[in-house]
């Protein structure tokens, strides 16, 4: 059976004598109650919440990049393993990536932050992917439930179109269909 390429061995080190908690390959961290972060996300401005998420994601992406190596061309499976491992290690939920035609959708489940944490998680994914593959990506919220999100990985033009579609009452599925109607048909991952 295939196992994840993410190795969590000694990923978190508790130095009880010094009163420190550290992540392997990274600096010290704080164990903060989930409720505190949730309330913070509800109180702060969206830009501030995003800044918090960028900080989280940037460090996570840097650790993933350090493990993979600078010259590596990771596959989709490796990205899901590594980035999902970081997300799980932080207690932010489980990550999966869906492929809807040409579109890539990040699905995060069991996120303890609730709906208030969507902005934080969007910023987390954007900054983490920038650190790993050096691509500027917008993680646009498609679907938000009590403990799960769907974030579309898209560019700036596509995010504007999808936002307009969703604000007019369209479903996120129809938004993806509409997005493909103007796209070219050179589908990656398909050999002719």
């Amino acid at each position, binding site marked *: 059976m295939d196992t994840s390429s993410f190795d969590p061995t000694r990923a978190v080190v508790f130095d009880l004598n010094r009163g420190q908690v550290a992540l392997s390959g990274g600096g010290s961290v704080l164990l903060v109650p989930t409720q505190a972060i949730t309330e913070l996300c509800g109180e702060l401005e969206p830009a501030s919440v995003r800044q918090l998420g960028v900080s989280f994601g940037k460090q996570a992406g840097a650790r993933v990049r350090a493990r993979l190596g600078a010259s590596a*061309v*990771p*596959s*989709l*499976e*490796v*990205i*899901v393993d590594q980035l999902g491992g970081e997300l799980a290690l932080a207690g932010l939920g489980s990550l999966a990536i869906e*492929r809807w035609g*040409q*579109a*890539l959708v990040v699905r995060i489940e069991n996120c303890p932050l609730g709906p208030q944490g969507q902005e934080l998680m969007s910023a987390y994914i954007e900054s983490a*992917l920038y650190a790993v*593959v050096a*691509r500027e*990506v917008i993680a646009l919220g498609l679907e938000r439930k009590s403990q799960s999100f769907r974030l579309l*990985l*898209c*560019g700036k*033009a*596509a*995010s*504007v*179109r*999808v936002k307009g579609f969703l604000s007019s009452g369209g479903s996120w599925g129809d938004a993806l269909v509409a*997005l*493909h109607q*103007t*796209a*070219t*048909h*050179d*589908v*990656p*991952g*398909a*050999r*002719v």
Partner: protein
Amino acid sequence: VASRSMLESLLARVRQRASEPRQSVLSIPPLRVPRLDAEPPAFGGARRAQAVLPDEDIEEYEDELIEIIDEVELPTETPPDVRPRGVPAFGQSAAAVNRGTLDRAASDRPAPVTPHTPARGIGAARPASGSTITASEPLRAEVVSRRPISVAAIAESQGTRRDARTVAFVELLDAALKLGS
């Protein structure tokens, strides 16, 4: 005392009777079903018919006849059904089987050899029309194979889709970023 000429005449009659065909011992005499509406037969009618038979003369000189008959070679009649009869495994004609009884003369003969007639086995083939196979017809196999499938467009695809998990993430991400642009 019987004279010799009388005995010789009796011997001649015995030989004549011996040469006459007799009913087989193993055969079952036909049953008579009496009719209810028929008149009962008169008593002694059958006995009177038997009384006129000349067998009375034979009984009279029974002892002498036994001695004479022992000296004479009489044609022996062997029951035909007690002889061993082989049952042919192959070659028995279908007509004989369909009749329900074996023709005795035909069964005593050796089974006809028909090398060109195919045996009715798994590999044997018969024409679809059901006509009988003659000896001159060559043996051929009847193969039932799958009929060809007509060419029809079941589905159309732009290509074979690879498993996404093995594709480079950057390749997939760059394609996703092109959407809507």
